[in-house]
């Protein structure tokens, strides 16, 4: 019983450490969708545009927030992971024009970081 309680507490503590990830998307610029997903970890990330012809699968957005005063402060690594997860669902080969806003406080958290990029699939 005591061990279970410790486990629950440890789980809660760990959950409060990882930043909260909020995903979003905008399909207004999308011109196609893919048939299959891609592995998020293998998706390429470019800060600018690329010269290869591509189809746009959608603009992917992410907001990462520190959960509590003891939580990990969100960084671009957390945000990129969120963008890759969303792009992987869409079957993207790459995320281009990735950019981030200024980190800081928001209504929901003391530390928040917003980012976005365009999920594309090479032709």
């Amino acid at each position, binding site marked *: 019983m005591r061990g279970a309680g410790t486990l629950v507490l440890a789980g809660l503590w760990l959950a409060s450490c990882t930043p909260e990830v*909020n*995903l*979003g*998307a905008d*399909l207004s*610029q*999308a*011109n*196609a*969708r*893919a*048939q*299959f*997903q*891609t*592995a998020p970890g*293998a*998706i*390429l990330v470019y800060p600018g*545009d*690329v*010269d*290869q*012809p591509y*189809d*746009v699968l*959608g*603009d*992917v957005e992410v907001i990462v927030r520190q959960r509590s005063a003891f939580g990990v402060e969100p960084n671009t690594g957390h945000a990129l992971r969120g963008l890759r997860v*969303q792009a992987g*669902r*869409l*079957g993207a*080969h*790459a995320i281009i*024009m990735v*950019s*981030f*806003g*200024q*980190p*800081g*406080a*928001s*209504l929901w958290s003391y530390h*928040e*970081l*917003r*980012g*976005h*990029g*365009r999920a594309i*699939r*090479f*032709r």
Partner: protein
Amino acid sequence: MRSASASRAAAALLAAACAVASACGATSPPPLPPRRVAFAAQDPAHPAPPAPRPPDIARAAEPPIVHERYFGWILAADLVSLAPLVRWMGRPEDIYLAAPSLLLPPVIHTLYGEPGNAALSLTLRAAMVGAVYLAGRSAEEECEDSESYICIPVGSFLLADAAIVLVVVTDAVFLARTTRELDAWHRLPVVPSVSLTPDGRPALTLGGHF
């Protein structure tokens, strides 16, 4: 409820509240440019090396997900239903006065497709209504025993206030959130893709509208 104008209004409300607070330092990145339609023509004799691309996995693509908050609707429902609830403290026989506060927010959760959150919200609100009832009875007893001309049952009011604030904030901040898929994705044309079958053979997939 899920219209784009509603979400824009919520975002504008949030931005306005944030501006008033003037403590919000987090900014959004610059907007993305329109989709590029023209690409530089390649010399067929010297084609550029193809960009590396991750392989497809054997799992169908899915619509993008969007995490949303709908705290505005919960707060609006509470704004409407709090006056009858407070009135109910003095008239406990009129049980219908407590009904909006008990039921409106769970109905909103259900409309957003979150039955689990609706059940949790109903439980919290039942406890809140119970605490408000007890506070009302406690206030009556406090004032019956009082010999002063004006009776202000501070302790009972504080108990009711704490119960209401705790539940309303918990509901609006922690429960009023949902994850949905963008339906517009299904209307986009499918691009041809090459993938590997389970036995390792390449498969070409084409899609289109007919």
